[in-house]
């Protein structure tokens, strides 16, 4: 049987890759997907722990997180659409870039 720790390591790796994607990419979609990746990493942890201690709580949590992720995805994509439409009118080329939105600063 595969030790729980291995699952957890995979989970941690996914989480960290998600983080790396979040901080290093400009593309709004990819940043967004990085978050999804992180949530999935967490889910794996939940399930691994769940299995580890033989409790079903983790399953429920995962279930909830998937629902949450769906909601977040909806909102997030709505925001992306909104901003793409608004910004696209002025500077189409960078409307999808996170770095394009820096007017609020200092």
């Amino acid at each position, binding site marked *: 049987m595969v030790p729980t720790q291995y699952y957890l390591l995979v989970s941690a790796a996914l989480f960290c890759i998600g983080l790396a994607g979040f901080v290093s990419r400009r593309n709004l*979609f990819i940043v967004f997907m*990085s978050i999804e990746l992180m949530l999935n990493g967490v889910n794996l942890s939940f399930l691994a722990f769940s299995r*580890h201690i033989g409790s079903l709580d983790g399953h429920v949590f*995962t279930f909830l997180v998937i629902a949450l992720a769906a909601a977040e995805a909806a909102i997030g994509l709505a925001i992306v*659409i909104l901003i793409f439409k608004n910004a696209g009118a002025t500077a189409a080329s960078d409307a999808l870039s996170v770095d394009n939105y820096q007017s609020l600063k200092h």
Partner: protein
Amino acid sequence: MHPAFFYILATVSVLAALGMIFQRHPLSAAVYLVVCFLGLAGLYAMLSAPLLAILQILVYAGAIMALVVFVIMLLNVRDEDLPHEPHMYWHLGGGLALGAALFVVLSKAIHKVPGEAAPTADLVARYGEQVGGAPKFGGIEAVGLHLFNQFVFPFEIISILLTVAVVGVVVLAKRRI
């Protein structure tokens, strides 16, 4: 299941995840992500979580990612619309270094997770046995019972949350109100 499945699925997931963040075009990234999610579904299954494995495929890889892809398509993102990322690899390197540092900390801690996973026998003893010898643990019945017994309140909250999301999306994305 054989441990080899784990290694295969784990490798696929991690590589797909890495592949996702290295893609220039969001569509291909989305495809990588779907692959990653599928791999994860496999791992879920290995963790005696068949229900979640199915949900992962249906909801995550299916619905959510479909939504993402749909939006990308809807916005008609062409190559020239993509952000100009001159030093993407450098940035990724930095991000990965950060991630690696975190990973080191996490792995050191994970290393200290005590003991082993609960034996299947225990689970069977506690949650009963399905047809075919698998424990009911992780099955739709057990999870459902658990959800509606212990977690009915969170369940209600999540429904409110989804309502909020619906209202929010309508407000944000509707063309003209």
